[in-house]
Structure formats: C-alpha cells, structure tokens
C-alpha cells in the first residue's frame, strides 16, 4: 500500500492496536519527499529515533513516525555505517529538531544541516561516544568513568535596548522536575523563551537493551511516572504487535479503566494546581482532596496508588470483582457531582478567569505546525484523540464501542486548557462507568511469547497526549531497541511560543496549564 502518491511500499501492522503502517525509504531524498507529502496532507511528526543495526545488517537506521487522519505511518531509512547522515526534517516539521539532536547524541547519526547543538549530552560523556551503539555497551554498564564536565550552551541571544536575560533552573522553585529556561525580557514582557532540557536524562533507552519483555514493562512504566499506565499500555501494545499476541477483551477493558483513572487523577491535580497558581487556594484544597480520594481507591482496588506494573504484555496482572467495579461507579458519581460544582465556581470566579483568559494563547495553525497532540492541541480546537472516531479512522478496541467524545475549545489559552480538562474529566467518568458496567467476561492475560526479530509500534492517548512506544526484538527474543516517545517533545516548543506575548509572572500559570513531562522527553 502507498500513501500520498509517494513511492514507498507500506504494510499494515498486524494485531488489534491502533492502525499503523510500516515502510522503508530507499534514500534520504525519498524520506524527505515523503515528509513533505505528509506535511501537505495535514500530517504531523509523531516521533523520530535511530537504531544501530550494524550487527544485523551492517547499517544504522533512522525511524520517523508520521501521524495523519487514518493512523500512523512509520518510515525507516538505512544509513551507511561509515557516514550515517540523513536529511534535516526540521524545515518541514519543526518538532524534528530536538529529536534529531537527541538521536545524534545517543546513536551518532546526524542530519545534514539543521541545529547541530547537543541536546541530551551536557558534557557527561565525550562527543564521539554514543551510548546506544552496540560497541558502547561495556563502557555504559561500568558507569562509563567519563569525567562529568558540564558544558556551556549557546542560547540564542536577544539584543536591543533594555533587553536582558533571566536564567531559571535547572532546579526550579517548586516541587517540579529540573530543566533550564532562559527568558529574554524587556521589563516584565517576555520576548523569547528558550528551553534547555535533558537534565532528567538517565539512560532509559540504553537500559532497555538486552532486557526480557517483563523487565521492559517495568521500565516502560517508569519513563514518566504520571503516565505510567499510558506507557505500560503503549509498550504492551507494541510488544503484542511484535509477537503476534492478542490481549483478551476483559484485559482491554481493565487497561482502559486504568488509563481513564490515570487521566482523571492528573486532571484533578492540574485543575487544583491551576487554581493555586492563580492564588485560589480554595481550588487547590478541593481538587487535591478529590485527587487523594481517587488515589486511595486506586490503592484499595489495584494495590498501588498509580496502578504501576498492572499492565503487562498479554494483558493485565489483576482482575476486578463486582464489588470493586461497583465502588468505581459510585466514586465516579460522587466525583462527578463535586467537579460540576467546582467547575461552576471556577467559571464564575472573576479573579481566576482574569488570570486564565487570553493568557498563554496559541492557535490551531501553530499547534498543527508543531505537531502538537493532547490537551494542549485540543484546547486550540484540533480534534485529535486516538480514542475517538474521526473521518477515515476507527479507534482500536475497547474504544470503538464506547463512542469517545473528544473535548475541544478554540481559545488556545490557559482558560481553554482548563476547560478541556474539566470536559475530559466528565467524559472519562462516563467512560469509567460504562467500562465498569460492561466489562466483558474472559481471562485477563495470555502468553506473549517473544518473537525473535519482531518489531512493533504502540500508540495510546495518554492524559497529556499521544504516547508512542517503538519496540524491536533481537534474535533471542530480547529487547534490542525500545523508543518511548512522550507528547512533551512536541509540546515543549509550543510552550516557548505560548509565553511570548505574556509577562514573566504569568509563566508559572502557563507552564502549569501545559504541565509537561521532563522525564518523559529527556529519557
């Protein structure tokens, strides 16, 4: 099968996950031409990563995943071992830039042109040593023994009378992950924000190499703790595609229950924190109380407050009995009533709305240009939700039967991102009730025997946005390469744009309204 009239042959990935087509480009020019065609067809760059295939086929490989109306397309391109260079895609999809830089830092395959500054390498390892190359294996496990010499970074300077810089981080003032923000300001107005991330880089992708499938699941659940269910499911889905396994229907229902519970928990926390950042302590207390009730029921029913390690390749590790499902339905009704009342208070609170409205605005054109997904994209009016039907796309089970209604808002500001969260809580509560009542009878886990040389891609609509995991198995059925991709890769640059017309004191509020993952994108 072909797409957009480009000469690349694709095969549809087997299995019950979301629709994914896999293909190979014959040359860098073919990849570039395909990217141009995908962009013209309103596609987005969903992920980009590299792999060292020299042992199997004597080359390096770069993988690009494009999201479009009907699903996802992965295009891989082989690169010669001696001179692994591929075309810069950042002129077509700006989101490619940081992914290309990270790929160069980790695998040592580079783009011809584009931003050549290091991204994840801050000086902890030499510029000519690449952790994800096979021959880097021994060194990496020995703690490497490289001198850790933090390097300077070439921030883009902003000139002009009265312009000055405010550096913030890597350690921030709140209870939050580390990253560096360089504001260029005049007075309190932000002219430009440039992020330098990578502080959370802890070598996750290297740790996957050589692990068995179960160990991989545990690690995938810790790529970004707030999205543990989304990652565990995306990983399981990729492994199931690679190994030809189909999780039983009840397991899919339970996974969806966990994913929606994760979504509600995070949205409750974010709405509380948004109130707090706008000096409405009442909102913080109320939403944090609801979130705590929610997590306590998780602990009771799933044995863990964040439901970590409950989704595994083949299904789930636990089943829920009728009383547990009843408790979920009852809690949904109680929380639904409270969220409705709190939503009214937020809507009518003049001080809060004054801070929310028009603050940190981006529009749908920018969201599309930056390949944005998730809450932030839907808050600009884009209808983009892997759980929901759209023209030419049927969501995978169990979503297809549930008729998920994606929440959207066209304002693109903090108020819109709050409104989308309110609407998504309401929808998730409905989904949870339907899932709990209609959970099909079956076993909850089947064997997923490792398929040597297997290869798969999993896509899950996490609470923040689209979570992708690419998995490739080696000749012994162990993990050869796993790339977990967080929606924050695409959303961080959107935050740089969102803050541009606003003032420095509004940054914490705008940042919170995106609530992006550092760990998920730094890996």
């Amino acid at each position, binding site marked *: 099968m072909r797409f957009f009239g480009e000469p690349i042959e694709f095969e549809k990935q087997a299995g019950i996950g979301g629709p994914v087509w896999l293909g190979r480009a014959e040359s860098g020019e073919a990849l570039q031409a395909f990217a141009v065609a995908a962009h013209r067809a309103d596609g987005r760059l969903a992920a980009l990563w590299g792999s060292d295939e020299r042992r199997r086929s004597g080359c390096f490989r770069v993988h690009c995943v494009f999201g479009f109306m009907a699903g996802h397309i992965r295009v891989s391109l082989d690169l010669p071992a001696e001179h692994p260079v591929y075309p810069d895609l950042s002129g077509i999809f700006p989101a490619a830039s940081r992914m290309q830089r990270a790929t160069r830092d980790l695998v040592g395959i580079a783009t011809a042109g584009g931003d050549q500054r290091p991204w994840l390498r801050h000086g902890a390892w030499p510029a000519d040593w690449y952790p994800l190359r096979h021959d880097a294996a021994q060194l990496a496990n020995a703690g490497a023994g490289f001198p850790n010499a*933090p390097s300077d970074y070439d921030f883009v300077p902003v000139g002009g009378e009265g312009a000055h810089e405010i550096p913030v981080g890597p*350690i921030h003032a709140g*209870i939050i992950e580390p990253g560096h923000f360089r504001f260029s300001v005049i007075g309190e107005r932000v002219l430009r924000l440039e992020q330098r991330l*990578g502080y959370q880089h*802890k*070598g996750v992708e290297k*740790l996957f190499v050589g692990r068995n499938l179960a160990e991989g699941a545990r690690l995938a659940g810790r790529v970004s703790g707030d999205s543990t269910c989304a990652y565990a499911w995306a990983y399981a889905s990729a492994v199931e595609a690679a190994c030809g396994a189909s999780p039983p229907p009840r397991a899919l229902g339970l996974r969806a229950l966990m994913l929606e519970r994760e979504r509600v928990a995070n949205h409750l926390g974010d709405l509380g924190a948004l109130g707090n950042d706008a000096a409405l302590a009442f909102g913080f207390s109320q939403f944090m109380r609801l979130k705590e009730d929610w997590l306590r029921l998780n602990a009771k029913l799933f044995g863990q407050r964040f439901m970590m390690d409950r989704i595994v390749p083949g299904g789930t590790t636990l089943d829920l009995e009728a009383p547990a499902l009843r408790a979920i339905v009852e809690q949904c009704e109680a929380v639904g009533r409270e969220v409705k009342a709190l939503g009214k*208070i937020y809507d009518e609170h003049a001080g809060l709305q004054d801070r929310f409205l028009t603050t940190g605005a981006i529009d749908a054109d920018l969201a599309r240009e930056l390949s944005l997904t998730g809450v932030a994209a839907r808050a600009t009016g884009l209808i983009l939700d892997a759980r929901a039907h759209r023209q030419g796309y049927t969501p995978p089970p169990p979503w297809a039967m549930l008729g998920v209604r994606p929440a959207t808002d066209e304002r693109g500001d903090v108020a819109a991102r709050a409104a989308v969260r309110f609407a998504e809580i309401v929808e998730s509560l409905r989904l949870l009730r339907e899932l709990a009542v209609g959970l099909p009878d079956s076993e909850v886990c089947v064997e997923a025997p490792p398929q040597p040389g297997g290869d798969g891609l999993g896509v899950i609509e996490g609470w923040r946005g689209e979570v992708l995991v690419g998995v490739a198995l080696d000749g012994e059925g162990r993990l050869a390469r796993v790339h977990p991709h967080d929606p924050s890769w695409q959303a961080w640059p959107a935050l740089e744009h969102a803050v541009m017309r606003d003032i420095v004191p509004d940054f914490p509020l705008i940042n919170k309204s995106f609530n992006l993952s550092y760990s998920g994108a730094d890996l």
Partner: protein
Amino acid sequence: MLRRILRTGIVSEPPPEAGAEAREVARLNREILRILGRALTIRQVDAGSCNGCELEIHALNNPYTNLEGYGIKFVASPRHADMLLVTGPVTKNMEHALKVAYDCTPDPKLVVAVGDCGCTGGVFGESYASCGAVENVIPVDVRVPGCPPTPVALLAGILAAVRRD
C-alpha cells in the same frame, strides 16, 4: 464557595503512627519547634526522578496530610531550607546542580533521599547517564524507599530525620 468550604469541613488526618504513638508525634512536633525555631523548611530537589515521587510529595500538601499544619513548609531556595528532600536517581546532568544546592543549604542541614531510586538508584541504577543513589553525590541522613513512597511514608521519613538531629 463558602458553603462548599463549610460542607467539606476539616478533612486533615492525624499524622502517621497515630494511636499509641500519637503522644510521641506530639512530642516530636514540640521538638521540631524547639530545634528549628517554629518551623521546618524543606527544599525539594528532583535530581532525575520519573516524577512519580513528586506526585506523592505534592500529596503532602493536600488537606488530608496538611503538612503546613505541622509547621513544615516547602521553600523556593535551598538558602531558606533546613532540609533537602531529594528524589533520584541523580542523573549525571543534575550531579553538579545537586552539589551546588547542597552547598547553598545552611548548616546544620538534613538530607532525606526519597524513593527506591533516591535510595539505591532503583530501576535506573548507575550508568553513563546516572550516578545512582543520592548518597553517591551528597551525604544522606534518612532514606525513604518505595516506588513511589506513600505520603505517610514520606511524612514518617521527614519526622525521622528531625528526630535524629
């Protein structure tokens, strides 16, 4: 809004080790006030976590745990802090910043390592990108294991660090 505040009432719960040890906790609170001059201030440093631990540290500020009710408060600068609450593993990219934060915290200071990763390196261990446990980078007084540790375990760990002092 006022009606809702009244209807919700006070949901704060007794601190951990309630019941037989409630008196001990009350004594500890007096102790905290005596030693640290009316308050304990904490600077939280995420040195490389998956952000799971941060979710539970946030929960310390919810009305159930109500940390500020004990006179314990999170502050924005290590210069204002009595205690560093550090999650890990410590990435190589955060090693320098963590050392600087430690040096900026005035003596006497306490360090609590949070989570399996903060205590041992956890699933991430030591590698080209990770220094592993917090104690590999700065001295640690108390360890709170768990993946992630519950808010009750965190509170108990914070109180245990003060008790040692």
